[in-house]
């Protein structure tokens, strides 16, 4: 069962259960920063405000306190995350 992902000062959504957190955010048309997508570069790190995530494999990158690497984890409870920039700056507009 998938857990709810809440974007701080944004909205909540229900990701596809098989997606990593990074893929889930990208599926929301958010231009996330990334590079290796394997947990060794640290480019994608974001702040975890509430909830827990589970790593598929312990990442190599240096991760700051309270931060997570969305490229190699998924939410293991409902989570609240803070994006590095305001949502309106990094969400791509999708025309209906």
């Amino acid at each position, binding site marked *: 069962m998938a857990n709810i992902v809440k974007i701080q000062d944004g909205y909540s959504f229900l990701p596809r259960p098989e997606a990593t957190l990074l893929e889930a955010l990208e599926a929301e048309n958010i*231009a996330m*920063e990334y590079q290796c997508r394997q947990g060794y570069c640290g480019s994608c790190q974001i702040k975890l405000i509430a909830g827990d995530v589970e790593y598929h494999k312990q990442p190599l990158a240096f991760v700051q306190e309270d931060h997570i690497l969305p490229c190699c984890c998924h939410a293991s409870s409902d989570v609240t995350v803070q994006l590095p920039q305001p949502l309106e700056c990094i969400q791509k507009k999708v025309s209906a």
Partner: protein
Amino acid sequence: MAYTTFNQNNFDATKEPMFFGQNVNVARYDVQKYSIFEQLIEKQLSFFWRPEEVDLSNDRSDFNKLPEHEQHIFLSNLKYQTLLDSIQGRSPNIALLPIVSLPELETWIETWTFSETIHSRSYTHIIRNVMTEPSKVFDDIINNEAIITRATAITCYYDALIEGIQLYNAHGEGEHTINNEKVSVSLRELKKRLYLTMVSVNVLEAIRFYVSFACSFAFAERATMEGNAKIIKLIARDEALHLTGTQHILQLMASGRDDPEMAEIAAELKEEARQIFIDAAEQEKEWAAYLFRDGSMIGLNKDILGSYVEYITTQRMLAIGFESPFTTKQNPLPWMNSWLNSDNVQVAPQEVEVSSYLVGQVDSDVDTDDFNDFSL
């Protein structure tokens, strides 16, 4: 405090700090103080590649078709990267090996430096392929003012550290008179130099390389110089890992968990360290101006590249807990991420080694029952 290549003291290496403890003796990895360095070594080894695996036969004709100002951009970047890797292919070894105290960190430094020598070799491979006279390019590096000013900014920290360590090894701490000059050697001063050197290496790997990377990928976005872009992707993958290594070292220093004095020094030098980032960003923006002095290239100009430099500088500063003076919030070159993503690194198909498949994939647990379906 003379250096010894095999320390005959019997001591527990896991109780030593990263640097300036006892010299390493047994290169053993069964017990580790910081297993992260062992994991970085494994990852770096799984990344192993050779420049010759990448086919550059189309790049020569592509290069000849480029207008002159774009050839200038392409060659200048290669020259600059050659300089950076000339430095990185030796300096971590020379500066850090005499003072390192953990076997896993010692091997990480060697593995890291070795991979930089592959990068240097790949520049020769590229230039041999695109130029009739490669020596013209290499000979210019040492005469090129724009490059040499950068070299000074990078090497001054390494050189100060190396000089300090040599004096420390030869004479130990204290006041000495050498060639009628008074010199004072103190361990705390050496640790300061070490900290600033690590910051400047972090800046080199995290910011300085990226201006060249951006240009290489901008060419490839237009489907030109694609072999070169493949090599740069492989280099960028290695650099991302080196950056992680340096960030871990800096963080271990700043936390005081490894050596409490190092944490004091990190706090004391925070402003100076921050300034290294800011100065590097300014120098890289100047470099962008030099690259585009005769004209821009499609999709990239001095201003866009300048704001990209500010953007990644902010990212890198935040990553190690520094505040950035720059306000660029959005990535001005969004296509960079997909080029930097190493998942789609492709060399000659038969040579591709998917790094995650390399370790322990042989199933040796085969039971005789597994052969029941076979008959002869």
